[in-house]
């Protein structure tokens, strides 16, 4: 063996290597999975709706690259830069395969930004569709998930959005603006696999100019297990985001007692700290939330230069915030009985042994959980003017009535 190997080393090796390199350079120039970009149908969004006979309707919105932008970057005026194809089937990928039969290019889902779930399907339960969006290697956990409120996902995908080339881009930008709830596939699956109930942002169609239809980010869909239980309005959704400690761009507004007009403020910074405490054998949730705000509008005659006045206004903002959070929490606990805030997870982390007992009856326990709220608001900016504009000096009030 050794003699043979040494002969191989001396003479044959370099020839065999040369032949191998030549053969494989020719045969494997480019891998089998290579696809030219002009052979791909880039999926921007997928919509899933419930169809008859326990089937689902899958709609996909694709980009039309040639309609996207002209060479100087301006919008092309020749037509829409997207189109929507739909089909009905029993599963997501089976239906997508049937859609593929209508397309000259290969469906490519790696660039999917949005997954829209139709209201009817959300009511029936979203568990069966989730796997398809995670298992496939092209799928991404960064895909945002929204529920089409009062509409089908297909309708939303077909609606135009004048500010963006494709409606999907509009939805994505709306979500990025942090004015509402933002949930991606990762968040959804995390909530589903933990002790938290699902809550998803909703998008609804509104009337635009003339007969055109546009859409807006309208609140949140609350799920009980995997089924839609109801909707939260815009304000309630913001309060829920506040409770969940997620980023939020919103304003707070208060009415000063015995004075005309309101004072509004932008949230500059906020934080929420949720703790579980066992008091007399019962779980109590303690929520401490604080915010730094900047006054954005003062319709009253109050002078905001006086520190005492500022302090009083801060207390009023804190009270208002507390009331709002309390009302939303009550609604979630009593009306939906879904732990979308994450109480269960906090109890699990703090009292893992107790949680094992509570977990079984959490649906019954959650509405009964007592919540102690503490809010603290600090005014950090009063804007470019401290005195109310266009109000005679005599009428300006230095303090609250």
């Amino acid at each position, binding site marked *: 063996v*050794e003699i043979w*190997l*040494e002969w*191989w*080393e001396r003479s044959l090796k370099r020839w065999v290597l040369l032949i*191998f390199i030549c053969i*494989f350079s020719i045969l*494997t120039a480019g*891998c*089998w*999975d290579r696809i030219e970009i002009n052979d791909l149908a880039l999926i921007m969004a997928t919509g899933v709706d419930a169809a008859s006979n326990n089937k689902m309707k899958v709609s996909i919105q694709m980009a039309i690259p040639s309609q996207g932008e002209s060479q100087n970057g301006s919008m092309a005026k020749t037509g829409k830069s997207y189109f929507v194809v739909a089909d009905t089937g029993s599963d997501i990928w089976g239906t997508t395969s049937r859609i593929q039969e209508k397309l000259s290019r290969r469906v490519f889902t*790696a660039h999917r930004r949005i997954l829209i779930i139709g209201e009817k399907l959300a009511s029936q339960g979203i568990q069966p569709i989730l796997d398809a969006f995670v298992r496939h*290697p092209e799928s*991404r*956990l*960064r895909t945002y998930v929204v529920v089409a409120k009062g509409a089908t996902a297909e309708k939303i995908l077909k609606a135009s959005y004048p500010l963006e080339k494709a409606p999907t881009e509009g939805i994505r930008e709306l979500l*990025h603006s942090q004015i509402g709830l933002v949930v991606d596939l*990762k968040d959804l*699956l*995390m909530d589903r*696999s*933990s002790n938290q109930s699902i809550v998803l942002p909703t998008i609804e169609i509104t009337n635009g100019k003339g007969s055109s239809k546009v859409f807006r980010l309208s609140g949140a869909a609350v799920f009980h297990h995997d089924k839609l239980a109801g909707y939260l309005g815009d304000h309630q959704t913001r309060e829920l985001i506040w409770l969940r400690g997620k980023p939020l761009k919103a304003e707070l507004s208060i009415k000063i007692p015995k004075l005309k007009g309101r004072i509004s403020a932008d949230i500059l910074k906020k934080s929420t700290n949720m703790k579980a405490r066992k008091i007399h054998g019962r779980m109590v949730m303690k929520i401490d939330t604080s915010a730094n705000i900047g006054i954005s509008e003062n319709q009253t005659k109050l002078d905001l230069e006086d520190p005492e006045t500022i302090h009083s206004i801060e207390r009023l903002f804190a009270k208002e915030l507390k009331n709002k959070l309390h009302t939303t929490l009550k609604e979630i606990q009593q009306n939906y009985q879904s732990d979308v805030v994450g109480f269960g997870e906090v109890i*699990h*982390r*703090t009292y*893992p042994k107790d949680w094992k007992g509570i977990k079984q009856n959490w649906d019954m326990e959650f509405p009964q959980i007592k919540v102690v709220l503490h809010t603290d608001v600090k005014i950090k900016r009063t804007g470019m003017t401290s005195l109310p504009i266009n109000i005679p000096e005599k009428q300006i009030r230095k303090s609250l009535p």
Partner: protein
Amino acid sequence: MGVKMKSSIQKFSNLQFFMMMLGFITPFGHFIFIRLTYVYAGRNAWISLFCSAILGVIFIYFQFKSASQSPDQSLIGESVQAFGTWFGRVIGFMYICFFLLACSLSIHVFTQFLNLLFPLTPSFIFVFFLLFTMAYVVHAGSETLTRTIQVALPVLMALGSLVSILIMKERDWKQLLPIMENGFFPVWHGSIIFLTMFAELVVFRMLIPHTNTPKSLPKQGLFFVLIVFFMFLGPTTGPIMIFGENLARSTLYPTFEEIRYIQLFDFIERLDVLGIFLWVTGAFIRSSVFLLGAAEGMAELFKANKNNLYVLPITFFVFALELSLKSYTPEKTYHFLASSYSVITIFFGILLPLMIDMVIGFRHKWKSGWNGGKEV
């Protein structure tokens, strides 16, 4: 008595030696062993890492300590010294088989990953090109491999650090709570997985004769374990902090998924290619070291004139072995890695070397006693 290595062997510095160890353990550990630990220890995988690092310190110290007593001998030479020519050679041959199995498994796990991303490309193409490059480098000698790793490792570490920084904002430390909810046993099970990773380092006992200053290895080994601990802490806690325990556990490649999840300023995203690069390089380093260990072992066992004489036949053997694993799905491979492979590796990586060292120690003592305290 033992099988002597040739006097003209290629030498490399201790730094190169430890860089090779880091390149060997880190990428594959990040992609595979961390996921295997999640299956058992879940969010407590970092405690498993801590426990295994403590055991790793002891293991590495004693491995290097006993190996540095006879720095000219590789593991096979020592097994012959301990158990005699015939039985020692059988153990040596078993080690070679173990290295080749580990090499094939590493390539198999790697090609399975690539096949998920490139489903139409036949897996043997990946195997062929990886093995071709490995055989070329290993044939060129251990110094070539160490120099290759010396170039690749800083790049790998820089990219790994970049990934950690980019994903930092997504981490939520609360996901690591509660600690040890189900007691210590799952954590211990997770430690066994990480310990398997340390046990695989036994292949480096084949390369100790190449080091310039083997006497310093035991102390330097302690720093090595410390560096490994810190290099694994982020990737072990990262996917749990980002995806939560259940989601991290149910994904096949959680650290790769973590890289895929990076999004910064709305345009830094889809960094899959970074993960693929880290893994391609890591798989190459790991498999090459196993191949090198087996090739040197073969040369030593059969008293070949050249260390690289058997590189080609064993490369063909690995190729065949890998193809025979074709029916092993990722789940099946993971199950094997976490069960039988752990047992085999801990036996070959910890128990058997310990036995060899103990027998050599007893023999030394016995001979010293026989010759009136004078060592032979």
